[in-house]
């Protein structure tokens, strides 16, 4: 923040960096909710940080620095609104009063900051989650906004995480913020009814962020931990904001249990390793422990939905000491439940694979071939891989080879392509295929 300065300035800069890292999301959410304007909230928070740097070094750090920042930012916003007719009209109904500063603007804010304890700063992040995942926004806009304003990443960091250039990401965020304003997307806490209706949409954005980190559909890396970590942090935040929501805990559990296998999912060369062949000792036992305990409680609740069911499936994998000890019967039942809750081609595919494990490869092949004509699976790489592996298991290497070649023709990342090419070479050279599935 400052390259050189007095000891006081350096100390203040350090405090501000800590606040920025820990509480930026919360401060921003409080301001955006009151001002109903994300842009303005960002600008005035930045301005308040700059003023803090100047003021705190000479006058001392207020007892409650966060409340000081909020008050100064809010006053700054009101000054801007007053001088901008369009903003003023739009924000005419904003229920905030200018803190009359009398003589000294900042002194008053310091006093006010002293009076407010940090628990009095309302936590509006849940409302901001809902604003940023509103159904009128495009999916990529929702993801960008949540990464920027709730995960607290800079535009440069968000761009890097999604492998797009900074300018593109900057434009995307600007457009999304503009859409919130012009469309009139509401700010503020959701009602009980809205929470029930829209929480799935919010959870989905977090899930999408995670899956983009888990299996990028393009590019060379098979897994991007930074996105996974951000998604887990967001899910954790949601659990603290709505601790009673089963599906929020179900999602966190699912992400933790999936992430616990991150190390084992690729070998040292970055080639994916199937669930069957993963070294279970390299699974992260701490993530598993937390994920399991969350899954256990969530699974017993009446509100358990698709994320909780998926977490329970992941929990069964995590609990199996070896691949062959996996409780496939139970997993098959759970995929049956999941396909009723959230029918879709990928769920059907997973259910067919579980069928093969629980009831034998013939049953699995039948289930898979029933799905072959599904438009959602025709060009879906994991379907053709599963098909190939089942065919090979049944001693049909020629058909298996054809299925692998179909898989190669589908969209996927380079590491997967390498894996498939190796399998085809092994088949051609008559080498027995290593068992793989999942």
């Amino acid at each position, binding site marked *: 923040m400052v390259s050189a300065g007095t000891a006081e300035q350096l100390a203040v800069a350090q405090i501000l960096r800590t606040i920025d890292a820990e509480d930026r999301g919360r401060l921003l959410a409080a301001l955006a909710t009151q001002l109903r304007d994300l842009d303005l909230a960002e600008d005035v928070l930045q301005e308040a940080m700059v003023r803090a740097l100047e003021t705190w070094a000479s006058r001392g750090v207020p007892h409650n620095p966060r409340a000081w920042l909020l008050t100064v930012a809010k006053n700054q916003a009101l000054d801007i609104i007053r001088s901008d007719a*369009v903003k003023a*009209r*739009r924000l005419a109904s904003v229920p905030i009063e200018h803190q009359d500063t009398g003589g000294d603007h900042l002194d008053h804010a310091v006093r006010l900051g002293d009076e407010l304890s940090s628990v009095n700063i309302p936590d509006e992040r849940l409302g901001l989650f809902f604003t940023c995942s*509103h159904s*009128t926004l495009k999916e990529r806009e929702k993801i960008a906004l949540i990464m920027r304003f709730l995960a607290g990443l800079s535009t440069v960091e968000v761009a890097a995480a999604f492998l797009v250039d900074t300018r593109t990401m900057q434009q995307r965020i600007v457009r999304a913020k503009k859409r919130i304003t*012009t*469309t*009139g*997307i*509401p700010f503020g806490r959701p009602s009980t009814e809205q929470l029930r209706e829209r929480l799935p949409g919010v959870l989905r954005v977090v899930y999408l962020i995670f899956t983009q980190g888990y299996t990028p559909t393009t590019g060379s890396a098979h897994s991007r931990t930074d996105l996974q970590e951000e998604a887990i942090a967001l899910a954790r935040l949601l659990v603290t904001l709505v601790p009673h929501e089963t599906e929020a805990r179900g999602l966190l559990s699912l992400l933790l249990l999936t992430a616990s296998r991150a190390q084992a999912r690729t070998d040292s060369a970055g080639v994916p390793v199937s669930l069957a062949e993963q070294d279970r000792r390299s699974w992260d036992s701490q993530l598993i422990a937390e994920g399991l305990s969350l899954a256990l409680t969530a699974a017993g609740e009446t509100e358990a939905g698709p994320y909780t069911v998926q977490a329970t499936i992941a929990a069964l994998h995590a609990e199996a000491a070896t691949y062959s000890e996996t409780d496939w019967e139970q997993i098959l039942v759970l995929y049956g439940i999941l396909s009723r809750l959230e029918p879709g081609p990928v769920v059907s595919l997973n259910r067919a694979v579980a069928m093969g494990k629980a009831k034998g490869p013939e049953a699995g092949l039948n289930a898979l071939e029933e799905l072959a004509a599904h438009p959602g699976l025709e060009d879906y790489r994991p379907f053709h891989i599963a098909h190939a592996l089942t065919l090979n298991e049944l001693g049909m290497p020629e058909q298996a080879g054809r299925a692998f070649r179909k898989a190669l023709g589908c969209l996927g990342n380079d590491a997967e392509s390498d894996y498939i090419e190796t399998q085809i070479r092994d088949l051609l050279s008559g080498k027995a295929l290593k068992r793989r599935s999942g």
Partner: protein
Amino acid sequence: MKYVLLLMGNAGDAECGADEGPDPSEFMAFDEEINAAGIVVGGFALEGPETGVRVSTRATETIVTSGPFAEGGEFVGGSYVIEVADIDEAIAWAKKSPGSTLGHIEIRPLADY
């Protein structure tokens, strides 16, 4: 915020009052309800698209054409201009409108100049 609810129809669709379409009485009931809510600040209902007259001026020439126009597609049947707190309220009203069952409702925020 002010929004326009544009009641969109499709040229190929059933006429209002025909068997599949919503009954005119449903439109009347909706009209009564939305007006009673005190949020309507304007709006209009239009005669069918075949009664339309198109005017376009290109270079020195002005072309005036009368319907019915050969091409089908979407047309505006009517509108409400409403003043509500946010897009969620506008969406809730659009959902209630019988116009959303056969055609669709396009919600557009009024530009603020």
